[in-house]
């Protein structure tokens, strides 16, 4: 239930630690009911920004608005935060811990118990309700941590590297659960540096590097602005055409196909025509969308070069 369409509004936020600037003039919006990818390399300032969003620390400059207002105890109750480095009380029973975390978010005991049962069932951990944390495996602990994040039915979910340490099966499982939550119109912020997963899940992304925003927008927009004109090509012959530098800037040869990067003003259709004219036998000609991974690497590298110039 959101008052308006923007769940989170970050405006010109900065954070300094002594000489070091962790976050520099950062601005972005997160719209309700969408999955927002908060991407960047290690040390970019993601966790610092998240802490400001969640109310653990306060920005030195700029404002953070949640659900249309400044952060308060009430707004905190509507946020679920799963930190990157996380833990559970060592000697407590699973149920007691979950009850405590729920109480801290102002969930009544009765309601909390119902939800605990539901979520333990959902995450396939029902038998572990009365067991102590020390009895759980790492994967199980992480699932419990996830439950504690969603237990109070938050409108905004912030997950910082939620997949780290999960085996592939559990990664899929978690993605499934997140998709369900999205279908319930929850807003979800993902912070990660795993691009494949981000690509699968995110509607909007922002990429930050060394305390600044590098690029942002919907996934479509970002990918679109970045069309590097790549062609996946499998053919026999046509090598003369491929050596034409006005058409082809780079060729990367993979197992049984080539990845062609078109030259500056070259056009894919022209290349195709020329290859056919040249008598090449083409079995595959496909325009590749750049992967988020590629975008990430390219953008971060150029940005870093810029900084060090």
């Amino acid at each position, binding site marked *: 239930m959101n008052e308006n369409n923007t769940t989170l509004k970050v405006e010109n936020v900065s954070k300094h630690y002594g000489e070091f600037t962790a976050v520099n003039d950062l601005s972005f919006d997160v719209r309700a009911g969408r999955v927002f990818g908060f991407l960047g390399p290690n040390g970019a300032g993601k966790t610092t920004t998240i802490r400001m969003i969640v109310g653990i620390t306060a920005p030195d400059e700029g404002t953070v608005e949640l659900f249309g207002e400044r952060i308060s105890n009430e707004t905190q109750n509507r946020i679920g*935060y799963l930190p990157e480095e*996380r833990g559970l009380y060592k000697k407590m029973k699973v149920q007691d811990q979950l009850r405590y975390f729920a109480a801290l978010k102002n969930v009544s005991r009765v309601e909390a118990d119902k939800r605990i049962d539901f979520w333990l069932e959902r995450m396939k951990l029902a038998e572990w309700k009365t067991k102590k944390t020390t009895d759980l495996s790492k994967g199980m602990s992480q699932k419990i941590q996830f439950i504690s994040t969603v237990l109070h039915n938050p409108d905004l979910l912030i997950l910082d590297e939620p997949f780290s340490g999960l085996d592939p099966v559990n990664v899929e499982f978690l993605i499934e659960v997140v998709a369900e939550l999205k279908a319930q119109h929850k807003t979800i912020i993902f912070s990660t540096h795993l691009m494949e997963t981000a690509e699968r899940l995110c509607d909007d992304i922002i990429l930050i590097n060394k305390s600044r925003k590098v690029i942002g927008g919907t996934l479509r927009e970002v990918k679109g602005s970045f069309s590097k004109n790549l062609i996946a090509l499998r053919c026999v012959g046509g090598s003369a055409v491929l050596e034409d530098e006005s058409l082809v800037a780079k060729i990367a040869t993979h197992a049984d196909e080539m990845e062609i990067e078109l030259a500056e003003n070259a056009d894919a259709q022209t290349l195709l025509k020329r290859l056919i004219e040249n008598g090449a036998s083409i079995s595959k000609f496909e325009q590749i969308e750049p992967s988020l991974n590629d975008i990430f690497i390219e953008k971060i590298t150029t940005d870093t070069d810029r900084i060090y110039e």
Partner: protein
Amino acid sequence: MRKFLAVVKHEYKKIVLKWSFILGTLLFPIIAAGFAVVPAIIFSIKGEPTRIAIVDQSRKIAGRLKENLSAERMTAKATQAMKDSLKNIDAPTDERMKNSAEQFVESFVFTDYNADEKSPEQIRRELGEKITSKELDAYLLIPSNLDAADAKYEFRSRKAGDFGGERNLRDALNEAVRSQRLAGANISEAQLKELSRNVDFDAKSLDEKGGEKDTDSVFIASLIIGLMIYITLAIYGQMILAAVVEEKETRIAEILFSSARPFELMMGKLTGVGLAGLTQLAIWIISALVLVGIGVAQMSAAGMNISIPNISPLMVILFFVYFLLGFFIYASIFALIGSMVTTVQEGGQFSFPPIMLLLVGFYFSFAVIRDPNSSLSFWVSIAPFFAPITMPVRILAETPPYWQIALSIFINAAAIAGLIWLASRVYRVGMLMYGKRATIPEVWKWIRQS
């Protein structure tokens, strides 16, 4: 407010519902019961009475001797010995051994033996055989020339190393012979009794109002109170440290900080743990009072009279107040330390100074017991870190004027406010700093930042 209570409840249950708490709480009363009940048991163990044959060749002092060895005399001696030993905690070892020996009630059974017309060698032989055949435990040969310089009193016993028995017998004998000498100087039995009557030494202390208190029991009670508070503060203070560091180590702090305000979290923690400590202390004090009541009843039944000090309900309330004051002072410090360090071990190293303060406070309480109204006692029962232990002791020993108590409470409460303010600054920042322990200059910076 609701979240604060949730934290309090969580911390309280975390401590109280564990076996370690239940065990520790019960252990103290059991040990105290030991102290109360065991002496009573010891006193009622008279052991095997020593079967002794007294051969009085002088025919003058056997009667007196037997009287000196009677049950009532022995019991009275033991009582006095116990009282003395409790007062002289710092007495030298041999004196203490002497005291412990005298605490055992000796009982003697007198066996008749007709020594008429037997030579000394014959007597010795016959009695010696009786001892060997275990018919007799000991015999005493009193020579006919009682007072001669070379008079030899022979005591042979089966029990090797019967330290107490020998002592008691020797003392009784000396007394009897002394009485005999006095009689020989023509002093009648009645006069004798008058002259050698022990003074009834009534040791009591006067408090400010001129009322009387029994010093023996006050000493013990003050000691126990001081000890209880010291132990509880040390244990629960360190529990705070462990709880704070755990949340930091496991990074739970991040989730907590995104759910409630750091100040709420810290105060909830302090309050919850404090309540648990209060619960344990309350159980201890109640069981102590009950056991003392039982112990005193048993000892009076065994013929000894030890009175308990007068403890009013107001005093009990003040004890709890001071416990809480002490708890919040030390717990704030431990919370502060916990926020700075990264592991429990590091925390342990840093908890040395506060524990030292506690210990010094405990030692000061001895000085307070000795002289409750000295200026040292005044300052020490007002000063923030020492008052929680020394003031209760002082109240029990000799209640100071109310204005002093009020002043003490006020100063300590102010100290707590300051410490909590300090601790919450450090808590807020320190709980999120991982990796390395915060240095003092860093901590100072956190405190000055808002």
